[in-house]
């Protein structure tokens, strides 16, 4: 790799790492002040647990060689064995993705999960869900990737995967005491806005960094990422203005994230003004989707399902429609005349990940619940997780 590409991948790694504290703030501002530290720590600790496992063996499992007919990687690169500079750098770049994916799930379990259960959940989920799913799509001969499924920067591997896993854990965990009757309002919306800003900033590394070079594809990815986020912000804002009467700060931040999620699988594969379509669709559909939890009464506390799972599906589907021939080759988007092959593969890979991730995550959650209990307990929930689980208070008065 030349110095320019190296520079771009170095900084992209830093950018994606920075998304984790960004996500922590985005989520942390949305919970009540008695639980904000727990939310911050659930996110930050993913940057502790995941990298250690990643360099020891998980990177190898998720991406290296072929061991099992395209189902899971080998241990050939365990302990960073035989990685040259470029390999090391890609390993580090992907380590940030592996770290943020479980962190995304934390939004669904806010306010009630026992912290020790989270410490057990994250490594299990990484190995049992993230590694195989990543291998299927990105691995040397992962079966979904081989069939022709596309996922530029992780719409399916990261967002759909985390989103549906969030649903599974939320179902096993159950609803918060008092939800949805008692109001549980965001305690600090400026924090949410800082978080959204950091996420947008970092997402340039996430998506344009996934070109693995500072080239035309990276440029296309950056432009698409930028525009989709803008369009989704406006779409969400107008959707809520029409339905609820107001443009809101939380809506703007949520729209931005929805748009970023939706463009993720497609960032380097679509061109021109398609990104406007991704953004607008994600803004409206995610806005509508976050309401479903009240109808179906699952307590996805901070809307991981509505934003990441739904946004990921919107993006993965639209990619099947709008993938650009110049960028993806002959099996391009259905809507652009590329035939239904890509579109079908997109639906297949999304369906596979939805089913696999849901099932295995559900099982992991059930097992943890059986062995050590998932919920912190009623009293702790009332008092707040910060003082009870972490012996800390976020904001001191005196």
């Amino acid at each position, binding site marked *: 790799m030349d110095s320019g590409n190296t520079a771009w991948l170095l900084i992209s790694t830093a950018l994606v790492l920075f998304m984790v504290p960004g996500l922590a703030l985005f989520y942390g501002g949305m919970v009540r002040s008695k639980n904000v530290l727990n939310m911050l720590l659930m996110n930050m600790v993913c940057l502790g647990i995941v990298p250690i496992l990643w360099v020891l063996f998980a990177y190898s499992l998720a991406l290296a060689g072929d061991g099992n007919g395209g189902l899971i990687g080998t241990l050939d690169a365990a302990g960073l064995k035989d990685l040259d500079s470029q390999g090391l750098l890609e390993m580090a770049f992907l380590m940030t993705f592996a770290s943020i994916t479980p962190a995304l799930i934390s939004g669904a379990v806010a306010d009630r999960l026992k912290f020790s259960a989270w410490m057990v959940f994250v490594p299990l989920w990484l190995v049992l869900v993230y590694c195989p799913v990543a291998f299927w799509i990105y691995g040397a001969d992962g079966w979904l990737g081989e069939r022709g499924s596309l996922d530029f920067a992780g719409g399916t591997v990261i967002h759909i995967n985390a989103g549906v896993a969030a649903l599974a854990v939320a179902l096993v965990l159950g609803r918060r005491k008092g939800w949805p009757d008692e109001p549980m309002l965001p305690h600090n919306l400026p924090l949410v806005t800082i978080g959204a800003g950091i996420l947008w900033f970092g997402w340039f590394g996430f998506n344009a960094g996934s070109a693995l070079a500072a080239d035309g594809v990276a440029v296309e990815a950056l432009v698409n990422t930028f525009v989709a986020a803008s369009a989704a912000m406006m779409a969400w804002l107008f959707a809520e203005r029409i339905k609820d009467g107001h443009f809101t700060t939380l809506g703007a931040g949520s729209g931005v994230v929805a748009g970023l999620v939706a463009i993720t699988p497609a960032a380097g594969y679509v061109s021109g003004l398609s990104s406007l379509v991704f953004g607008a669709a994600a803004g409206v559909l995610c806005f509508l989707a976050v309401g479903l939890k009240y109808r179906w009464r699952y307590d996805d506390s901070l809307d991981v399902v509505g934003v990441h799972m739904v946004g990921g599906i919107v993006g993965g589907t639209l990619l099947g429609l709008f993938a650009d021939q110049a960028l993806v080759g002959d099996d391009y988007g259905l809507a652009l005349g590329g035939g239904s092959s890509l579109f079908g593969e997109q639906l297949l890979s999304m369906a596979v990940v939805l089913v696999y991730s849901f099932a295995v995550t559900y099982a992991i959650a059930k097992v943890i619940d059986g062995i050590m209990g998932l919920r912190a307990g009623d009293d702790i929930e009332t008092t707040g997780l910060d003082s009870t689980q972490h012996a800390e208070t976020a904001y001191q*008065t005196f």
Partner: protein
Amino acid sequence: MKLVTAIIKPSQLEAVKEALKAAGVAGMTISEVQGFGRQGGHTEVYRGAEYQVDFVPKVKLEAVVGATDADRVLDVIVDAARTGKIGDGKVWITDLGGIVRIRTGERDDDAL
């Protein structure tokens, strides 16, 4: 006129407010406070140093009511605020010399 003052758990505020509304109490004022009592506090740890935190977050609720309503309102609060666990708080009653509604200058019962 009487002033009913209650120190309650923050988690019971919603229930107490609804109960007071239902009981016809037209106004009240609340504030964030911190309480010390039998409930005890908890220990916090910052970089290995332990601190005993004696105060726990509570809500203070004040409602001015007619002299004859005070006992009833007190009962309403006690019922709604009770969880049965230590730290549920206290309610007390004070006599007032009078009350005025600032907007109109109305006094006492008319001011409520």
